[in-house]
């Protein structure tokens, strides 16, 4: 039944849990739209015929609707529209809230390719391998202009913005190969910025992962181009550990919980930080990245706005590697209270 509907509407194969939700609402909206348009159209056609002009100077009655009619005109569409909105927003909230146990993959768009890197090590260009029936969270960024990551069969899409991570997640339902397209115009080869998602069965995925970690790099095309940034076999977290040293992060941030000029990295990930302006923020990938690129945006209470920006100094994979490193520095007791402030007043 729904396969027939999909064929009729030219919808691509449905291959994720989100696609099932979206398609249901799609049928409902399109169906109601058709019925209502047909209703209005047929009523109009009937009246064109029924009230056709019989003489050129014909007089007509003065007809005005009473309040009840106008109320009907307003309330019927409003009820339908709000119902769609309610279902749509519920699904959207579901779509924007990845499950806790999802597996992370970093995605970086650049003119004109997609790069994927896994916290466990392998990375690749234009081919994303994921296991079926497991939630996958994509942490998406861009190196140059705005791109948009779109997998029609999964019905998911998210813009890739320079200097910022956005996220999208999906749970693929069946193994296969699905096309990835860029939907935000990004210049000359916008339409050639294609990639694919290869969904493997969980066992195949484990095997694939092992092969990758053995160093038998099978990725296509120019995966080697960026080995300077993230060696294919290294774990991102290890890369990040090196980077925090070479980039000078440790001059101000400690990794053992001790006080310093900036907040400690220990237990930073998923901590609730109280900000200078009184708001609270939950530290996630987006916040850490923003703090690297635009340190003054959200200052943790008790600290000074002294950090320089790392925009342009860190490449996309490097900032992702640092985020991965910080993620490993978790403690059992994540501090929920306000920050205690730095160890000493920073030199002005």
């Amino acid at each position: 039944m729904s396969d027939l509907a999909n064929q009729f509407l030219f919808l691509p194969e449905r291959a994720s849990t989100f696609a099932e939700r979206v398609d249901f609402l799609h049928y409902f909206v399109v169906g109601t739209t058709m019925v209502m348009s047909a209703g209005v159209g047929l009523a109009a056609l009937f009246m064109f015929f029924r009230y056709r002009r019989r003489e050129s100077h014909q007089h007509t009655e003065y007809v005005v609707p009473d309040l009840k009619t106008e109320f009907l005109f307003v309330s019927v569409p409003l009820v339908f529209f709000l119902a769609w909105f309610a279902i749509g927003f519920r699904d959207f909230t579901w779509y924007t809230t990845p499950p806790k146990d999802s597996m992370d993959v970093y995605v970086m768009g650049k003119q004109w390719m997609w790069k994927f890197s896994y916290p466990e090590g392998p990375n690749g260009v234009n081919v994303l391998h994921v296991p079926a029936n497991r939630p996958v969270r994509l942490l998406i960024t861009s190196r140059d202009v705005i791109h948009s990551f779109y997998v029609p069969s999964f019905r998911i899409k998210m813009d890739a913005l320079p200097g910022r991570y956005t996220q999208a997640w999906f749970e693929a339902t069946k193994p296969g190969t699905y096309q990835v397209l860029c939907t935000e115009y990004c210049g000359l080869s916008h339409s050639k910025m294609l990639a694919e998602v290869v969904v493997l069965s969980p066992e195949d995925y484990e095997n694939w992962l092992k092969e990758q970690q053995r160093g038998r790099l099978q990725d296509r095309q120019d995966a080697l181009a960026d080995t300077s940034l993230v060696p294919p076999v290294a774990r991102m977290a290890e890369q990040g550990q090196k980077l925090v040293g070479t980039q000078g992060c440790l001059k101000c941030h400690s990794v053992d919980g001790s006080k310093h000029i900036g907040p400690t990295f220990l237990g930073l990930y998923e901590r609730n930080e109280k900000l200078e302006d009184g708001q609270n923020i939950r530290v996630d990938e987006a916040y850490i990245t923003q703090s690297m690129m635009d340190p003054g945006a959200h200052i943790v209470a008790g600290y000074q706005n002294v950090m320089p920006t790392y925009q342009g100094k860190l490449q996309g994979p490097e900032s992702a590697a640092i985020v991965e490193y910080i993620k490993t520095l978790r403690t059992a007791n994540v501090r929920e209270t306000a920050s205690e402030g730095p160890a000493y007043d920073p030199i002005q």
Partner: protein
Amino acid sequence: MTPSSSIAAPGAAVPGHEAHDDHGHHPSYLTDGTTVKSWLLTVDHKRIGIMYMAWILLFFLVGGIFALLIRIELLTPGPTIMDAMTYNRVFTLHGVVMIFLFMIPAIPGIFGNFMLPLMLGAKDVAFPRLNLLSLYVYLAGAGFALWGMLNGGLDTGWTFYTPYSAHTTTTVAPVLFGAFIIGFSSILTGMNFIVTTHTMRAPGITWFKMPLMVWALYATSCIQVLATPVIGLLLLLVTAENLFSLGMFDVARGGDPVLFQHLFWFYSHPAVYIMVLPAFGVMSEVVSAFSRKNIFGYRAVAYSSVGIAFVGFFAWGHHMFVSGQSTFNAGVFGVLSMLVGVFTAIKVFNWVGTVYKGAVEFSTPFAYFCGFLFFTVFGGMTGIAVATVSLDVPWHDTYFVVAHFHFIMVGATIMAFLAALHYWFPKMFGKMYHEGWGLVSAALIILGFNATFIPQFLVGNAGMPRRYYEYPERFQALNVASTAGASLLAFGFIIIAIYLTYALIYGKRVDNPWNSKGYEWLTMSPPPTHNFIGPQPTYPEEPHFYVDPKKAQGEVSDV
């Protein structure tokens, strides 16, 4: 409003109406001075409207030719007639020309200028010289933009999204500056219309006796005056960013690329209503005239114009559901977008209601009304569909959206534009065109439009992104169908150009071929220079009052 029967029908009370056998003594605005200077320096709103028409039709031709080039290129999956860079420039040019030079000024510039004072019983707009200035400002902007497009040409798409537009090596600055100048024209015209509506209404024309076209133009003008400055400033910022690397939208310097989108859509979403509200106004006039009926729910239609203008300002974020904005924002913008749909639904129901117990004459403008009804309902409903947050995730930036906005923005507006052209052609030129050819071309255009854009809804469903120079093979069949539709559409327009030009020269002289009781028909066709001859007209009845005066008492019936 209860019509009174104690006063004679409006036509009889207007001196100008009797004067139409009197052409020898009172030249029409067309013959009152025939030198080039008398046209170029005129302050007559009607001549300014005609000059707008000449230019706007030229730009429509340019935008249309580029539309056809795009469709031909997309006939095959790979390169067909041009390279990728040329294609990117062509679709940008198509968008910029059609939006800024055609859709936004078309109905207000031509028919608003011509009809607004006539519909208000005024001799001219409030600031006639400002009116002429706005035409020249528009042309200056158009010149700038076109010069930029011919010398280098930009490839950003008409949305000029940063950071791409700040980095591209193509010539962005002159085009953006041209659009900035055109914005001034838009603001000046809007101001002029607002002041005219407030201060120049003839005695007897109260707010709720104004033709619905005036209501629509009034609401449009309010949007123009309020929103256009925002895009003006934004375009300057992008120009500066492109030329001097300011860093406003550059993350590396603490800027924000998404800030551009907020500011851009804060104007460009209401701009959609700048395009369709005048179309709604035209259609209210047309459906009333050709059903010989008062508008079913006059106040509801009038208020809904104002409602759309108001809510239209709070819906811009629905262009950015997948741009990383918060889930909460998406919800707020989603629900506010639904309200626009409700206001539009009120209008649609009241237009259909107007036909009820009417006397329908199925002539060319009414044929366009039928097409309009379909495009508005279908375009509007697909608009609600894409405003539904979760559905927008797969649809965003695909051909589904392209088809949707062409249906509502272009389909509805073109229908209204052509309806207005055919309905008011006799008013503007005092000549009549061939009705048969009118109906044939209307059928061709409505058919062609559907054939062009219905496949695009489907190819969008299938996942084809917009602004694609090449596409995977599986999208080809639908693209071929779309291109075939576009050629049908072009053919329809060629026929119109031929028979209207013919009618302009050889057409039969007419005064009010529709026996319409819209206010603008109370003077002769074409109107004399100061619109009315003799003393100030009076307006005892509302416009489109087709009730038998003898039976008017107690004739009001509710539904």
